[in-house]
Every structure is written in structure tokens, then in C-alpha cells.
């Protein structure tokens, strides 16, 4: 039985094709200018099918998730990101009790029980300062690729103080650190930026409590500097999936499986 999960994020569409316990393929489609979710979903699923060497008609059930999930006309069912993240994270890390997802424009924290059922949710307020787009803006400001930006903070000796309330304020603070005499080392500025977003996300997560084990998902989980800052601040180890961006799509695929073969 082959099923698929599609996560329609704000900047990327992710697809996971699943057969039993095997991920046959996953595909991340970067959205550029399309305003029609269904086209992006089709492109993403076509990419995944190509990778898996499968055709669309072999997929028995499709669940879509993410902000634009309702635009996927060919999906059999829609589920919210929270349910899908929980499902995917629990499948990958059964001991997970807290899932912190930091995507491009949103961050969400989930509290799970031992069965992986969501017991509490907290989403960020409408502010880029708690999401990946904040880090993109900062990397661009410092004329670094996001990969270099992520890595450089590991060599920081100190952390520059950066506000965690507003991207605009943070930008001017970064500029003032750069132009200081002597200027603050880039590594320290980036470490400060990571710390600022981490503080904001911990503040958000603390509203529902942070319990071990913690799983970090979403594109920002690929940022090793951010992961280190998060672990330091929380004082605990964080589990990061190999492909943290596809966890919601994976969860959607797992939910799709349950619809095709519901448990007795």
C-alpha cells in the first residue's frame, strides 16, 4: 500500500511517499512565484514520484497539511500541521514529548503524550523574529550563505547582544555591531542572532512546558549553530531528524496509512 503526505509550507512544498515503514521518496519543492497551491503540490509530488520510479495512480491515499493544505485538490484528506508533526516526530522518535518546529514563517511547539497524541499546542505570534525568515534576513544582511551563517557561530568566543523582538531592530543592531570600532567578530554576531531567536522560541515553548525528549523539526533545524544555541539554552540534548523539513509531510503520509488501513 503506497500513500503520500504533502506539506504545503509558506516557502516550500514537501512530499513523502510511504510504503509500510519505508519512505520510498521525499521531495522538497521550492515555491518561487506560483500562487496556485495545486500546481506546487503537483510539481512536488511529480518530483517525488520520479525519484521513487512510481506513477501517480499507484498512490492509494493522500493527506495534505500545512498552511495551504486546502488548495491541494487531489488530496483525499487534510490535516493540520500540528497533528502531522506529532505523528511524524513520534514515528521517528517514540520518546519525543516536545516537538519544536521552526519553519520559514512560523514556529510551533507541541507537547506529546507517550502515544504521540498532542496534549498542548503553542504557535508563535505574527512576527518573523521567531521563525526561519529572520535568520535568512540576517544572513543576507551579513552577505553570507545560510550554510556559512549556520556554521560560523560555532566558532564564536562571545555572543553579541541582539534584540529578539523585531527583525528591523535586530538589523540595525547587527549593523551597529559591524561598524563598532573595533567591530564585533562575525562569529559572535551570528551567535548572538541565534541566541536571540532561541530565547524567543524557548519563551514560546515554555508556555506549554518543555519536557524531554525534545525533537526539533522544520528547515531551521538544519542550522547547526541554532541547534547548538538551543541545546545550550535549554540545557538538554535535542534530537534532529536527518530531514527535519519533511516531518509534517511524513506525518501526513502516516495519517494517510491509517485511513487506508484503520486500526481495529
Amino acid at each position, binding site marked *: 500500500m503506497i500513500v503520500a503526505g504533502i506539506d504545503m509550507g509558506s516557502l516550500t512544498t514537501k512530499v513523502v511517499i510511504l510504503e509500510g515503514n519505508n519512505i520510498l521518496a521525499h521531495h522538497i519543492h521550492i515555491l518561487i512565484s506560483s500562487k496556485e497551491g495545486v500546481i506546487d503540490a503537483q510539481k512536488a509530488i511529480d518530483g517525488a514520484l520520479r525519484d521513487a520510479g512510481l506513477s501517480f495512480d499507484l498512490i492509494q491515499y493522500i493527506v495534505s497539511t500545512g498552511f495551504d493544505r486546502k488548495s491541494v485538490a487531489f488530496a483525499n484528506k487534510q490535516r493540520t500541521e500540528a497533528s502531522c508533526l506529532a505523528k511524524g516526530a513520534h514515528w521517528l522518535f517514540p520518546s519525543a514529548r516536545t516537538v519544536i518546529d521552526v519553519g520559514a514563517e512560523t514556529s510551533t511547539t507541541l507537547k506529546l503524550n507517550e502515544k504521540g497524541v498532542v496534549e498542548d499546542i503553542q504557535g508563535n*505570534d505574527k512576527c518573523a523574529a521567531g521563525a526561519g525568515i529572520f535568520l535568512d534576513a540576517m544572513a543576507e544582511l551579513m552577505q553570507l550563505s545560510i550554510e556559512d551563517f549556520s556554521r560560523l557561530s560555532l566558532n564564536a568566543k562571545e555572543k553579541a547582544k541582539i534584540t529578539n523582538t523585531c527583525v528591523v531592530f535586530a538589523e540595525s543592531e547587527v549593523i551597529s555591531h559591524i561598524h563598532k570600532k573595533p567591530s564585533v567578530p562575525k562569529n559572535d554576531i551570528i551567535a548572538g542572532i541565534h541566541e536571540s531567536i532561541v530565547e524567543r522560541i524557548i519563551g514560546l515553548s515554555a508556555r506549554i512546558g518543555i519536557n524531554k525528549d525534545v525533537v526539533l523539526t522544520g528547515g531551521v533545524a538544519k542550522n547547526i549553530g541554532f541547534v547548538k544555541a538551543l541545546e545550550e539554552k535549554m540545557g538538554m540534548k535535542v534530537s534532529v531528524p536527518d530531514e527535519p523539513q519533511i516531518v509534517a509531510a511524513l506525518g501526513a503520509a502516516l495519517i494517510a496509512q491509517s485511513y487506508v488501513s484503520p486500526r481495529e
Partner: protein
Amino acid sequence: MKMEEFIKAVEGRLQHLKSYSTRKSQELYFELLLEYYQAINKAKQEGKPLALVGVFSPKEIFYAMDIVPLDASFHLTYVGFIGGCEVFKDYLEAAAGYGLPIETCSIHRILIGMVIKEAISPPDFIVGTSHACDGEIKAFETLTDLCQCPDYFLDHPYRADAEGVEYYKREMEGLIQFLEEKTSQKFDFNKLKEVVELSKQATDLYRQINEMRKAVPAPMGSGEFFGILLLYNILVGTPGLVKYFEILRNEIKEQLEKGPTLDRENFRVVFLYSFPFYAMEFFEWMEQEYGVVDVMELMSTFGYTEEEMEPSSPLDTLAKKSFYQPLVSPIVGSTDNFVITALRIARDYRADAAFFGTHIGCKEACATVRIVKDTLRRELGIPTYVIDHDPLVPSVTPPDVIKTKFEGFIEMLEDLKLEQEQ
């Protein structure tokens, strides 16, 4: 939106309702609202003073002097309800131009912007209170400065004890003296007793309605209950409000006999504190899409007391009511009031979950979020959904974002229910 434009919008809403509404109370609501605003608009022409008053002020005292009080905060809420919150953009800009930072409560910024843009006629005097909202005191002082008019502030005590009641009674006596001076009218205590009698009738009916709402399933769709709170607050002490509540009470009673109006009731939710007033369609959406029903709002709740109003001692009874009336009771005094009230309504109304709207410009109740959430979870095992928003500024948390986030919460409730059933 100038007052004349707003009145036209209310008239339009009333005409629209008359063409499709099947409930008399809905029509009467807008008839009363129209009368209220027409009276405010005509005040100057009739040589009556225009009083701009705070949301917690004792409206009965004004009605006893034949002054129609323009409730500043609720006026904005009505403008948002009826005219749409987009109209506030100009006022927010005007307030920003006046130097008010965006961290200031949007209600106060809009109010000040409306006065600057002359969308509210300059009042003859301003009356505020210190109930729970520090922002109101400062914003009203700014308004006084802008309007160059006299003001009076009622200092409301922290504790609801005998000393507190006596203190507030003296504060209201001071208000009466202020009004006598400003209107050159002698205050008539017999008239106040009549007004307080009407206030008592409306209050008793409101309490009855709140009791009837405990029914499972809920007697009717819930979007309008926030509106009822607004009407009570601006018209308490008038005969129209009593008539409205009698009709509404009878409609709910009839509905309870007939059976619920909603097809299904999957989850009963209590609404704590603020709500994004630009997204009132949220209630119908959550009822129809998910069978989620608002069974009670914290702000519509009376404080826990058996106290009944006593019109023969009008100031004493108004002083007591100032602690237990809706809107006020959970947020005056200690955080315990908020927590205990939230717990009480969640239990009494058999809620499955709570929705806590935290108005980002308001520190009064938002500081209690964690205590309330933890208490509801610990004592009743129910989860609380917290959403940061601004009640009058949609750009902070747009309606679609609210819905999307809430859908995740509903799925969580469904999964937890399924798990319990298994």
C-alpha cells in the same frame, strides 16, 4: 467613520436584519443601539452635555441625570463590528503622528486618533475609572488635554470588602457633585433609585440568561453573546435594555424547549478575556465546520456572589455591583478573581476546552495566561488555546491565521477524545 456615518451604518444593519431575522431580540438590539447613538448625536442640539466615559463607569448615574454616556471603548468596538476594523487605520496613523507608540493599547490609540480626526465630537467632560486598566487613566488624561475639557476619575479600590464598597460609594458621590457642577442640575436621588431598579431588572435577567446557557447542548449559536455584553454595559439602567433581555430570555427558554439550534455540539469552549472583534464570523465557522460551541465568555460572567441589587440604597448597591458586574469581576483585584472565575465557568458550563485571547496591548489579564492555563489543566483536565492578537487590528493576527491555528487545536481535541474512547 464620523458619528453620522456610523449611525447610517447601524440603520442599514437594522434594515437588513428586519428583512431576514426571525428573532425579535436581534431587531430590538439594533433599534436600541440606534436610539442610543441618535441620542448622543442630538445631545448638543438639545443642549445636553456630551459625556465621554470609561468602560467601567457607573452608567446609571448618567442616566439618572438624563445624560447619555458615550462609552469610549465600546464605541470603538461597535465601529469595528459594524463598520469593519479597516476604518481604524486613519485613527491609528493619527495616534502615531501624535507620538503614541504601537505598544500602547490599540483601543486607546484609536480613541485618541478619533478625537484628533474629529470622528468624535469634543465632549463636555470625560469620566474615567481606575478599575483594572491603567491605560484608560492615561489615555483619558491625554484626551482631556486634547479636548480641553474637565474630567473626573473614579478611583476604584483593589479589594471587594466593606471598606472598598464604602470608598467607591464616596467616589461616586464625588462624581455626582462634579456632574451637578458641570450641568448646573441638582442630582435627583429618587430618579437614581428608578434607574437602579431598571439596572437591577436587567442584571437579574442577564444572570438568568447566563444560567440558561449552562444547558447541554447549548441553546443557540453563540456569536451574539459578546454583543450582549456590550449592550448591557452601555444601556444598563434604561427600560429598553430590560425589554431586550426579557425578549432574549424568552427566546432562549423557548429554544431550550424546542431543542438546540445547532446540528451538533462536539466541543464546548469557554472564551477567556479578549477576542479579535474583526473576526466575529469565527463563531459561526467553528460551529458549522467543527461543532465547536462557545458556551460562556469570561467577560460576560458575574462575579461569584448571591448579592442582589437593592434600588433603595442606590449608591451602595452600585458600589457593590462595581466589583461583581460582567467585564469587571474577573479583572479587578487579585489574579485569583480571574483564575477562580475561569475555573468556575469551565466547570459550570461543562467546557471541553478554553480559548484565551491575549490582547497584546493589554497587560491586565495577559499576565495571568500561564496560571489560568495550568489551573484549568490541573483541576479540570482541559486544555487552553492561547492566541496573541489585537482585538481591533486585524494585521496583527489575520482571521485566516486564527482559523488555521485553531484548527490544529480542534484536531488535538479530537485526537484526545478518540484516545479516551479507546
